[in-house]
């Protein structure tokens, strides 16, 4: 392998040899060299004056980094449950056949690597895949052939003939085939706005007044947890710190969620405006947008919006002529880690570390990014803030319910005729939403993504809001033909891989539950295994350190609660008091194979396992 030491050093230099920018450095090294080789770890460690194993820690945490040489084109096929039911296996077979390699492998010519990746936020246009950062949606087997041919000949991902999507998806800096599927724009996020109007109004108020307005609007965090935004701002404003930060969580990795992608495409200016208002309100001059690596195709476009806002005096010094108020925003790109959607893991990642969540307390409002008071809100929350400042809290609370004011942007996918994005007032019932999206004969709805809960028709009268069924936006619809246990199993597989591994219950418990649930699908579960899953699930929920672990057992716990018959009908009823999951013939077959003769007890040799 060529010695890239000079290149690696240059990359470090470009980021000021700042260890806090290790994510960016590794992204650049990976892009430049196709891997983060052993020598690169040493080069980076030296340039940043940190230890090699610290660099290795970050380089091995994120899915988009690789220690081994990867192909020039890394094809990542999305394997979330929606893609699975929309024909992922067919596409996988076609790519395998076309490239002559399996998943996890690289072609001999070094041109292609093939991998699976969890939800890339394209469930409404599945099956989908990434080729490096290029998104390909509604993939067909014919397209696979054409894509591979084009890449082999042109060796340029820009040569792919892909029909551009609607709205800003066809913007010169995006040029993506992604479509918005914005089915119902609502009054808050997707209403037409003029840049600067909300900010102008905000700057005419005292910062504490702004916090009062946000509190009066009863705005709650749109990422899923629903913490009151105004209270979070108040804590951060009151906290002591020489610097304060505003961070936007644009790392939507929850399976089935893609509403932030559409907001980033069509309303990013509003989001930046909300962040700037937050900066003024809490006394921060620096903002960070943490953009998931899967959405890197939007990076240049978002950077341009920031540049335009700087030019228009909406960012930078003396914003809109307000003497002394300065605020600017940088975009931190992620690299494939669901856990970074957890706010403290996100901060770790922004600091150039592995995405392990931080110990709480202290909370980010007290000690966040770089140990300084930090407000973290979701993309949609910042948009709502700008609109609330523009139109007043009364306007906002006139929509939604008492505990959940305003609108919510839902991402709907699965077995329905109109998957896509719906901005609707909080409090809409599940059945009303199902009617809007064209879902008939629905067996189950997964509300809130893998971390949410699966409900059956008996609960379709419930309301989507914080006081009843909370969701960060993901609504996945499953028809009668789907197997709810297979769906739960897919979610558990997701959590096993996406756990950061820091704490015992999440690291070990998710694997244990995944295996035990598999016994039901394989037809060798005991009735006692239901009890085991419930108890272990409760331990994982109770003892886990962060929100990921505390919700990781939900796929199993909610299906046991709402679809218990699906478990019971698969229990092996052989009348035996022995452990049904243990098959002595199969166990003995290994020894038989080694010994080269049949078992004395079981007679004819079955020929190994």
């Amino acid at each position, binding site marked *: 392998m060529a010695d890239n030491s000079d290149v690696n050093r240059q990359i470090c230099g470009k980021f000021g040899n700042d260890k806090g920018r290790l994510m960016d450095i590794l992204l650049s090294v990976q892009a430049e060299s196709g891997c983060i080789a*052993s020598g690169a*770890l040493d080069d980076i460690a030296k340039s940043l004056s*940190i*230890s*090699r*194993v*610290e660099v*290795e*820690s970050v380089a*091995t*945490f994120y899915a988009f980094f690789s220690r081994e040489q990867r192909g020039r084109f890394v094809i990542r096929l999305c394997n979330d449950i929606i893609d699975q039911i929309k024909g992922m296996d067919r596409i996988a077979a076609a790519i395998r056949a076309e490239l002559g390699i399996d998943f996890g492998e690289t072609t001999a010519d070094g041109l292609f690597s093939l991998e699976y990746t969890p939800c890339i936020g394209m469930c409404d246009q599945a099956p989908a895949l990434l080729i490096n950062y290029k998104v390909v949606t509604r993939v067909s087997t014919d397209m696979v052939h054409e894509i591979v041919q084009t890449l082999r000949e042109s060796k340029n991902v820009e040569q792919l003939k892909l029909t551009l999507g609607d709205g800003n998806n066809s913007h010169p800096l995006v040029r993506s085939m992604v479509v918005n599927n914005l089915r119902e724009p609502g009054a808050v996020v997707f209403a037409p706005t003029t840049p600067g109007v909300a900010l102008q109004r905000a700057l005419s108020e005292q910062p504490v007044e702004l916090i009062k307005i946000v509190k009066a609007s009863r705005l709650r965090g749109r990422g899923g947890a629903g913490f009151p935004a105004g209270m979070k701002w108040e804590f951060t404003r009151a906290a002591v710190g020489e610097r304060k930060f505003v961070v936007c969580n644009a790392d939507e990795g929850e399976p089935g969620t893609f509403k932030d992608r559409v907001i980033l495409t069509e309303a990013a200016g509003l989001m930046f405006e909300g962040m700037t208002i937050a900066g003024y309100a809490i006394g921060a001059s620096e903002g960070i947008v943490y953009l998931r690596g899967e959405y890197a195709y939007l990076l240049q476009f978002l950077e341009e919006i920031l540049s335009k806002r700087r030019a228009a005096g909406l960012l930078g010094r003396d914003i809109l002529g307000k003497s002394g108020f300065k605020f600017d925003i940088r975009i931190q790109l992620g690299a494939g*880690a669901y*856990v970074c959607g957890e706010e403290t893991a996100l901060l770790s990642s922004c600091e150039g570390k*592995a*995405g*392990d969540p931080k*110990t709480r*307390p202290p909370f980010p409002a007290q000690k966040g990014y770089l140990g300084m008071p930090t407000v973290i809100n979701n993309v949609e929350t910042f948009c709502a803030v700008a609109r609330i400042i523009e139109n007043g809290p009364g306007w906002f609370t006139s929509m939604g319910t008492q505990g959940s004011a305003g609108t919510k942007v839902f991402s709907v996918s699965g077995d329905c005729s109109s998957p896509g994005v719906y901005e609707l007032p909080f409090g809409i019932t599940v059945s009303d939403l199902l009617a809007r999206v064209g879902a008939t004969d629905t067996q189950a709805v997964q509300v809130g993504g893998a971390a949410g809960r699966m409900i059956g028709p008996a609960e379709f009268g419930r309301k989507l809001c914080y006081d009843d069924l909370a969701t960060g936006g993901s609504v996945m619809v499953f028809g009668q033909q789907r197997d709810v246990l297979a769906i739960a199993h897919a979610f558990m597989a997701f959590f*096993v*891989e*996406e*756990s*950061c*591994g*820091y*704490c*015992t*219950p999440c*690291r*070990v*418990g998710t*694997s*244990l539950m995944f*295996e*035990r649930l598999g016994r039901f699908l394989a037809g060798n579960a005991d009735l006692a295994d239901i009890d*085991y899953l419930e*108890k*272990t699930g409760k*331990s994982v929920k*109770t*003892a*886990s*350190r962060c929100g990921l672990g505390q919700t990781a057992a939900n796929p199993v716990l909610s299906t046991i609660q709402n679809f218990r018959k699906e478990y019971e009908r698969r229990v092996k009823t052989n009348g035996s008091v022995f452990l049904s999951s243990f098959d002595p013939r199969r166990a003995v077959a290994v020894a038989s194979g080694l010994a080269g003769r049949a078992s004395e007890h079981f007679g004819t040799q079955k020929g190994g396992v």
Partner: protein
Amino acid sequence: MGGNVSFTIDGKDVQGEQGQTILQAAALSGIYIPHLCAMKGLTPWGSCRVCTVLVNGRPQAACTMPISDGMVVENETAELKDLRSSLVEMLFVEGNHYCMFCEKSGYCELQAMGYRLGMLLPRHHYMFPDRKVDASHPDVLLDFNRCILCARCIRASVEMDGKHVFQFIQRGPHKRIGVNAESGVGGTNLSVHDKAAESCPVGCIIKKRVGFSVPVGQRKYDQKPIGSDIESRQTVTKNG
């Protein structure tokens, strides 16, 4: 010792100083809360979760949760004991633990915790992972079959030894302890005299040529169960 924070653990009044964690304040009052990743002198970590208690009804890690006035802590409830057992059993099945052959036997905190919590057979299935042994250091052996990812070595190396020998690498079920050299721990500046080499609660970091020196029956946890040193502590404050 004038404590300025008052709270209760299982109904007993406990005094502590502002800034202490529940685990620290409890230990000073002679109350043992089972724990593995916490170690005196190291930054609280909160990864093993064995010290999970209920604080005003909500689960929290006692090793990272600061005390505050009026806090109601539940420690020795049947549910928490079962939860702790389940977690300790997870640590057992996640690695390869053959206590009878392990040099750390009798000194191992995981083993001692299993005994203390009355563990007979793990309720979870064994994973039997394929893990490496790193024997590249002249004086120290790393047997990752036993590692429980408590990060005590990581912290001790940084905070006590002023080095950076260990760090987590990878994530999720693949997470493990990495060392600061491609060639293995022998390529690092770890010394057998480092605090990091002493910090391992299990038989992962083993000092070479000193094993099995104490006969079975006379080893540390053969004498008294883990936590009894704390429980035998005469507390300075009066219990209610």
